[in-house]
Structures are given as structure tokens and as C-alpha cells.
């Protein structure tokens, strides 16, 4: 929970976190090394100096550290852990649902662990969705359309094999589909992170919520256009938010575009932990005001009421969380950290 300077308690649901293992022992090849190095560069590039971590600490976190960063030092009430496998790069996967579930079980009620699947696996992907539902009762999945799989260097949400998976998700009540549409890892003209496929998938699956992580950046205009047309498309602030420190005016322009086009009900906070930690992000976000000239040009402002929605209330709605009940539950269960 985040306490505002005037004492108001704000419910924080961090929609985009990971419990990864990018350590050299888990790297399968040079791609695995380059991938975590690239994340580390995001970390060093956009974090305030006093928040910088050693490389080794960044590559793999302990259970204790995660709880500390998110819930003790950090203001999160709850966090969604996304699964990202990258099996071609990491021996045991980059962040697996099994490992994240073990973390979540240390303090029940704090985490929502999302699954992931690769539609290119065909029938196996469908079986795997059943497995995740039955074993972990997942409410959402994270899609990584640029993941390599053998000769394939990416897929689209509109691929027939993907549609079969989404049909199954809808049937099983896995209704939150988080899609990484963000910084380019390997963009060609046929860009695996282009946002166009979201438009069709969201229209064809109105019963699913499509949460576009990183708001499609660097294709913010395309994303805004789609999210404005489609009632079930949301924008996740991960990666956009850290600019609030290094380039606040630039962040102001991004958030103004989002508020103008998609409105305050469809923007979701995400720290992208462990690339960044939620403590400084939430503090700076609460203090933030859009500069007058930008606010005037776009006719928007970031009020406290809007900030509260972005920090937690919007995501709580998507995950059927009764905020008052959840607060009462968490107040009864302070974080316990088992000895490592």
C-alpha cells in the first residue's frame, strides 16, 4: 500500500513483474547472455543512480529480496508475475510458472501468477493450457510474440493456431491476455512486435481482456488508435513509467497521449520488476504533474483520482479483486520471509 503525503492509503496492484533466472548457469547460449544484458542496460539506462544494482543481483533474485523489493520496501499490495520461457535461450526457461508459484506460496494472497504458452506448439499448447488451468488455476497469460522457436522468429496473435488457444482460454475463464508489445528485440519489416494483430484479435475475442504491455512503444500512436476503437484493450505502463525520472517531460507526453486517447480507466501500472523496483516509480508517479503547456494542448490532467485508478483499481477490476476485502485480508497477514 502506498501512503500519500496527506495520509491517504492507495491500493497498488503491480501488473508486470518477473521472478526470473538469467544467471550464467541457466543461459543456454550467447542469446541468453545478450538478453539479460539488454534488460540490465534498460535498468542502468533509466534508473536513478541510487537504485542501481550489481549485475549479479540483477541476474537472479532471491525469494526474500523479491518480497522486500515489492511489498516491504516497495508499496505493492499485490503483484502479477508473468511467465516468459525463452526456451531457446535459457535451459530451465527465463521465468517459469512453477518457480514463480513456489515464490507466491511463501505469502499467499500477494501474487497472481500468470502462465504463458506458445501457439506454435500446436496440440501441445492446448494441453499445456489445460495443465496450467488445472494445476495453477491461472487467470491470465503473458504472450511474447517475438519468442524464437526453432526456425520461427515470431508469431502473430491472429495465427490460426493462436486463435485455437484463445478459444480455449475463453472457455476455461483465462480472460486476461497480456501481450508484450514493446521495445524491439529483433524487429524486421515483418515485425513481431507490431501492434496491428491486437486489433483483429481483440475484435474476435470480445470476452477476453487484452493488456498491451509497454503500450506498444515505440508505436504509441498505433496502439492508441487500436485501444480507442476496442473496448477490451488496455495499456500497461511498464517501461514507459521509468522515463518519469530521466525525462519527465517525455513521460508527460506519453501519459497525455494515453489519457487523451484511451482514457484513465484503461491504463495499468506495472514496475517491470526486476528491471525496476516499484518504490521509486510509485513515489515519483504520485508526485507527478503534467506540465501546463502539454496538459493544455491535450486537455488532460493526472489527478489523484486518476492516479489511484492507474495504480491499482483498474487492474483489480480485470482480476475480479474486491479491493476493500483484499485490504482487510492483507492487513491480517503481514509479509513473512522464510530464511533462505
Amino acid at each position, binding site marked *: 500500500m502506498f501512503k500519500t503525503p496527506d495520509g491517504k492509503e492507495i491500493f497498488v496492484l503491480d501488473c508486470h513483474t518477473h521472478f526470473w533466472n538469467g544467471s550464467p548457469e541457466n543461459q543456454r547460449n550467447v542469446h541468453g547472455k545478450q538478453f539479460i544484458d*539488454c534488460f540490465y542496460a534498460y535498468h542502468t539506462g533509466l534508473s536513478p543512480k541510487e537504485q542501481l544494482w550489481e549485475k549479479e543481483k540483477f541476474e537472479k533474485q532471491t525469494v526474500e529480496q523479491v518480497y522486500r523489493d515489492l511489498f516491504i520496501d516497495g508499496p505493492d499490495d499485490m503483484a502479477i508475475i508473468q511467465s516468459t520461457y525463452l526456451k531457446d535461450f535459457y535451459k530451465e526457461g527465463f521465468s517459469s510458472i512453477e518457480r514463480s508459484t513456489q515464490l507466491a506460496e511463501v505469502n499467499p494472497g500477494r501474487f497472481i501468477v500468470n502462465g504463458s504458452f506458445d501457439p506454435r506448439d500446436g496440440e501441445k499448447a492446448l494441453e499445456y493450457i489445460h495443465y496450467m488451468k488445472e494445476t495453477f488455476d491461472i487467470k491470465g497469460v503473458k504472450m511474447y510474440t517475438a519468442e524464437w522457436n526453432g526456425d520461427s522468429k515470431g508469431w502473430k496473435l491472429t495465427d490460426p493456431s493462436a486463435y485455437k488457444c484463445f478459444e480455449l482460454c475463453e472457455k476455461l475463464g483465462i480472460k486476461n491476455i497480456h501481450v508484450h508489445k514493446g521495445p524491439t528485440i529483433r524487429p*524486421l519489416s515483418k515485425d513481431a512486435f507490431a501492434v496491428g494483430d491486437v486489433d483483429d484479435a481483440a475484435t474476435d475475442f470480445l470476452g477476453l481482456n487484452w493488456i498491451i504491455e509497454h503500450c506498444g512503444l515505440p508505436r504509441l500512436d498505433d496502439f492508441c488508435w487500436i485501444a480507442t476503437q476496442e473496448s477490451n484493450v488496455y495499456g500497461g505502463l511498464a517501461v514507459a513509467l521509468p522515463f518519469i525520472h530521466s525525462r519527465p517531460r517525455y513521460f508527460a507526453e506519453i501519459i497525455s497521449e494515453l489519457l487523451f486517447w484511451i482514457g484513465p480507466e484503461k491504463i495499468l501500472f506495472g514496475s517491470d520488476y526486476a528491471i525496476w523496483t516499484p518504490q521509486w516509480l510509485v513515489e515519483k508517479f504520485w508526485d507527478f504533474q503534467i506540465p501546463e503547456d502539454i496538459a493544455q494542448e491535450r486537455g488532460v490532467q493526472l489527478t489523484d483520482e486518476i492516479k489511484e485508478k492507474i495504480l491499482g483499481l483498474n487492474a483489480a477490476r480485470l482480476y475480479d479483486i474486491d479491493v476493500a476485502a483484499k485490504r482487510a485480508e492483507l492487513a491480517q497477514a503481514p509479509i513473512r520471509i522464510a530464511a533462505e
Partner: protein
Amino acid sequence: MGLPQIKGAQAREVWRRLGAVTDPELDEPITDMGFVERLEVRRGEVEIAFRLPTYWCSPNFAFLMADGIRRAALAPSWACAARVVLLDHCYAERVNAAVNGDQSFDAVFAEMSDGADLSELRETFREKAFLRRQEAVIRGLIAMGWTHAQITGLSLAGFDALNLSNQPEAAMQKPRYREILVADGLALLPDDPAFVTWRGDPLPSEELGDHLMRLRALRINMEFNGAMCRGLAAARYKEVDRSGEEPELIDFILGRVPPREQPASTYGASPDSPGHRG
């Protein structure tokens, strides 16, 4: 992101020419971005090694830059051969084979970019650069209190006479905007409008607001890439960020000071003549 060692007049000439090669996505000279790692000339043979901010940087941008570097290296009359080497990139081998003529450049590019045409891609980024530079100048004028009608009514001659000394970003982009404007034939005569669309259509003042919104969206996207690129480059090579520091002797030797103030074209009045409001 330091500078390579440049020895000899021929190497200096190539270095200056490399200043016209931009990162297509950022619209900034590769020499300013610190991408060029080595530049050597021996008996008319030019060898240039360059490195991008990440192992994953888009291969088609790597292609465009490699191609631009090759052209710059071969431009001097004395240059008889050029070898361009992209370092530490997931497609380094393919890009290097293509750019150095071991394989057909166009064929390898088309194969890697799903049939896209290199010249189309180049055109796309030229348009982005044009619009981004245009926005910087127009925003400078707005900050100086110009009305939309004054801006859209400005002629090329009036543009050349602008004094933007209180608007550093606009002042920096002014000659760069003009370079594309004139080189691509979007404005030729002194009375031609200075601010037009990429298709060369004039901008009515009542449409300038919408036009600026589109330019802002374009800039947000490009700046995102730029910020990421700079952060990644700094982290990858753990090198000191020298931008914003006082120029050193090497900068003067290499003609890097001031790097962007020279008019890129000889047409028209001096770009820095005293102020004038259109």
C-alpha cells in the same frame, strides 16, 4: 562512446563524410552517436568498423547504416576500395557479407526483411527525419509567439532569414530541415512555402494543429528508440558520456565543432542572418 583514432588527411575526409550518415531511426549522425569504432585508410583502401548499441538492433537499420558507410567511404576520388565491418551483432556475418559484396546486398536484405525494398525503407526514414526536423523548427517558432498563420505563411526566403538563437533545438534542426526540404525538391524558389507536407502540399493554417499532433506522435516513437539506444550503448560499453562536454582538440582537428551549424546546401540566403518574422 568515444572517438576512433583518425590518422591522416584521407581518414579525416572519410570521417567528415561519415557525419552525413545517420542512424535512420534516431536521425542523428553515427559519428555523434559513437557507433564508429575504427577508421583506417591504407593506399586508398578504407576500412571502417562500427558497432550498434545492442546485439539485437534491428538488422535492417544495420543494413542501412552499413550501406551509408560504404557509400561515404567510396565517395572520395582517391578511394579505390572499402571494407565495412559490423561488430557484435546477431546478424553481423550476413550484413558484412552483403555490404562487402560477397553476396548480393539487395538479395540478402530482401530475404532478411520479408521482401522489403531497401530504397523504400530509406524513403520512409527520410520522411520521418524531415517531419521530425520540421516539428522542432515549428515548435521553436510557436515558443517565440508565432501564430499558425504566420508559420504556414513563411516562405523559404523568410525561413533562411530566421533568427532562432533563443531556441537551441530549433536552431540546430533548421539547417538539417532545410537540407531535406531543398534536396528533395519540396521547396526550390525563395517564395515557396517553407513548411509543407512530405508530399509537397502546402499546409493551410487551420490544419497546422492536427499536423503538429501527428508530428508529436512520430517524435514520441522516435525519442523512445533514441533514449533506449543511448541507454543501451552506455551500458554496453561502460564508456563515459561525453555529450554536452566542452569539445577537445580532437573535435577541432576532425572538424566536429560546430558539427551541425554549417548550411548543408549552398542555396539561398545565409541561414543565420538577422531575425525576421514572416
